[in-house]
């Protein structure tokens, strides 16, 4: 591994100015992707500009939504109780990235800018309607995360620009979300695929009678059968999938099919099928396409159901002791 210069700017402006004035330079935050790429000789920057010490990239605000700076580490997000309760899909994701050591330094901004199809926070941020704030030489601009992803390892950042942070809208009590990361082991793994879902359901202001359905170790299909009697209408829904396309994608047709409908087992089967038809997984050493497509069906159902569970049992989000 060759040596490199290391710069530690204190402000966003300083960082942008440095990048403009230096040849062959690269921004680095947690370094959990950049350093690996350098070691693999896929990157050979002469200069690294660290974004770690910039206070303006390190914020977390929870009023009227959720705003997170790009240099906030996974563990900081994981420890936040508000994120856990109101933006559960994101909490699910940040807790499962790499290992504790990685989560102590890796940042969400880095995860998104690296733009791997398998980026763990991408699916949750997509279903949580996140937009990104981009800082550049001439000021700041905002765009939806969906537009920010251009392709594998490609995002809509112009040269010198810095992803400053993420903004997510506020969601009501009747909204829940979840992220499922399908892996071969419990830590230190990339997802074979990932599915996130957010649902807003009309629970009619009254207690849901079948709360206890979720407290069992029953199969999904049995839980859904009991839910059917409750006439739970899915008012709004987002579904996003990772690793099944060149970039993390929304399953828009599946969303359409669920929106405004009463939750039922049959509908869930259909949603799973539609989401799978929207995926284009490939064969790789990490997983076979047929299996990934099958898992889209399974995990889409599970993610939606878990999101529903989080609305119905906001104080008791411990899923029954089953594999899923």
């Amino acid at each position: 591994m060759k040596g490199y210069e290391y710069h530690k700017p204190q402000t966003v402006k300083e960082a942008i100015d440095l990048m403009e004035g230096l040849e062959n330079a690269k921004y680095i935050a947690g370094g959990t992707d950049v350093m690996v790429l350098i070691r693999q000789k896929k990157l050979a920057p002469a200069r690294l500009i660290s974004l770690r010490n910039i206070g303006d990239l390190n914020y977390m605000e929870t009023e009227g939504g959720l705003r997170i700076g790009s240099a906030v580490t996974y563990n900081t997000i994981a420890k936040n109780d508000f994120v856990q309760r109101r933006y559960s899909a994101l909490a699910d994701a940040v807790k499962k990235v790499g290992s504790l050591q990685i989560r102590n330094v890796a940042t969400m901004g880095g995860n998104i800018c690296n733009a791997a199809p398998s980026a763990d926070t991408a699916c949750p941020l997509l279903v949580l309607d996140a937009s990104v704030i981009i800082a550049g030489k001439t000021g700041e601009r905002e765009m939806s995360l969906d537009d920010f992803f251009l392709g594998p390892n490609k995002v809509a950042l112009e040269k010198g620009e810095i992803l400053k942070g993420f903004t997510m809208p506020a969601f009501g009590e009747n909204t829940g979300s979840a992220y499922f990361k399908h892996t071969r082991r419990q830590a230190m793994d990339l997802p074979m695929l990932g599915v996130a879902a957010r649902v807003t359901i009309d629970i009619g202001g009254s207690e849901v009678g079948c709360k206890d359905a979720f407290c069992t170790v029953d199969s999904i299909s049995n839980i859904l059968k009991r839910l059917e009697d409750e006439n739970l209408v899915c008012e709004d829904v987002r579904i996003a999938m990772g690793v099944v396309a060149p970039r993390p994608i929304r399953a828009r047709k599946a969303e359409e099919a669920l929106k405004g409908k009463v939750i039922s087992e049959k509908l869930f089967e259909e949603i799973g099928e539609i989401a799978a038809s929207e995926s284009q997984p490939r064969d790789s050493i990490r997983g076979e396409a047929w299996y990934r497509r099958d898992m889209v069906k399974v995990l889409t159902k599970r993610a939606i159901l878990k999101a529903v569970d989080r609305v119905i049992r906001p104080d008791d989000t411990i899923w029954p002791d089953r594999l899923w």
Partner: protein
Amino acid sequence: MDGLKFVGQRVPKKDAPLKATGDAVYIQDLKVPGMLHGKILYSKYPHARIVKIDTAKALALPGVKAVLTGADVPNNFKFGFLKDNPPLKSGKVLSTRDEIAAVAAVSLEIAEEALDLIEVEYEELPGIFDPLTAMKEGSALIHEELKSNVLKLPWKFVHGDVEAAKKESAFIAEDTFSTQWVTHCCLGTSGCVATFDASNNLTVYSNTQIPSLAQNDFLEALKTFGLKKKRVRVIQAVIGGGFGSKLDTYAYEYIAILLALKTRKPVKIVFSREEEFLATSPRQCTITKISQGCDKDGRLTFREMEMVLDNGAYTSWGATTPSVMMVPISSLYKVPNIKYTAKCVYTNNTYCQAFRGYGNPQATFAIESCLDQLAEKAGIDPHEIRRINANEPGELTPQNFKITSCGMKDCIEEVVKRLDWKGKRGKADGRGVGMASLIHVGGAARVYKSDGCGTIIKVDDNGKVDVITGSSEIGQGSDTIIAQIVAEVLGVGVDDINIINNDTDVCPWDVGAHASRTTFVAGNSALGAAEKIRDQIMEIAAKTLGEPVEALEMKDGIIFSKNDKEKNIPFGKVLRKAHYSLGGRMLVAENFYDPPNENFDQTFRGNLSVTYAYGAHGVEVEVDKETGQVKILNYIAAHDVGKAINPMLLEGQIYGGGLQGIGYALGERMIYDKGYLKNGNFLDYKMPTVRDVPPVQAVIVESDEHAGPFGAKGIGEPGLVPTAPAIANAIYDAVGVRIKDLPITPEKILKALKEKAKQNG
């Protein structure tokens, strides 16, 4: 065995503080003055002719001191079990791990840069990546000078009459099973430093598991290089895991020697993690056809097995794994008729080597999976068929193994009890239980001519004891076990005992850390040496105290008369008396223990081990029928260990073996695609993490082996032998599908479930 003070105690590992504080000097940490760094260039293709190698640019790079290619290997030197492996290849490359050039430079960075400057022109050749294709008549030859791709190693064992037994059997189960390549994943990667003195005597700092055999290998190499009558010294750095990977010498060691010879400087080669995956030798993959039969009562009548092993492009000691596979094949359960043949076949894949269990896990996977199939056919509970056929003390098995102590039935019953076998089996509701048993060598294994280990003990004036042992500490805790044994005999504390075990100039001969033999052989060797030195000390004490030797006892560092406690003398004082009196003496004892076991004869019969280790594993799993994922809910590993010298270290061996076995069963595999390794990193090679560890109960069954030190048998390997079949059997009980091809991935289970659903309409 009452009244033991040190043996049987949970003594912490002697080297734990060193390792916990980072003070241990691994090969990675080792620096020798003037040392250069070596790097190796590997082949770009799995099978190709080297048309041209141009090293001029590399050699011209400032800081580069030498560049070697196959042309620089003197006198056509080759190493390995069949001497078919040149340290640097010329002419043809036969696999992607073939070493074709090497650089020594003043820094690692320069050496790496120089590698990129070596220009190689290849003419690519079609490769053979499947042993079955390689075996076919008319197949191209991997080694052109040989007549066949099948190695000339006739592995065949026949006992009784299998054909007749087949006719008489009430039930027969037959099937084909296969296993994958898995690698050791030592956290300390391989490496060495080679250095010559002015007289061309060689010192190799190494992390080998076989210092004495490696010394011999290097001596032979020097002779071939034209350096006759030289000395070779092997010094082991602290070793970060072995598991069999360091049971043979590797090309990189000879390359370091050649570079040191060329540059007249010490040369260090340490593998990167990627190299460790690529250029060390994994467990061989196997294809096994098996057929087993029983009578109407479930008594086994015969076992027939035919095995093909992918040898890879070169031959290491790993090609002898079929000899250890024979242990379970001939002797796991009482089976009167046996037929076994195995073929090792050259391919253009990576060449294979020893790995914890040495072939036993592959054989046991087939035997124990097939035994459940047979039990089902016969309508007998899998536990019952194992109980009926279990080995017993006093048995002489078809291979002439003399079964001495045998706790197999106890192990099986522990599993049944702790797993709630009867309550949980046969529900087919997504949860299930399975079990599998094991036999392994437990009292060494006479693979080489000698199976011995030497020990020298010396005590100093202050009552401190130095134990100089031939055995190697590779993380398993042999230093602690030996210290406990010696402490027990001498009545001094474990902390008063210093173990010296890393230098062939100092340490006596030993055949190596393999075959789960160290506690048994090195333990017995140390025990004998300790008894000799105790006798010497007692003799002097007797004279000093004016008491007969028989009346003396040694405890807590004091020697006293049993008749008169007032008559006593501290241990250290005896030693000083011996040393400082006129015509004084030193207190030194040596002992060589070579166990009374036998090499196989030409029919592969012989009592390979003085005693045999037994065990049974039971597992409860839950299978997610929608995803095919398996969760282990409970894992029982019961082992007959003779006697636990140190229950804590022993449990560590069982946990470690069990977890390595779980990786083998459920996820680990080296993915080779047409000769190219696709997942040579920890991201894509799915070794289980600490988060994947299920609840494991290590159950110690003590059968008190009379030949073992304080009754102990070996436990190094058994922990991973029955793991895969126990899990496969549990999955079958849970969801009714049997996966016969390791690893048992979610994909395979889901596919099997779908096929089953289709068949059931």
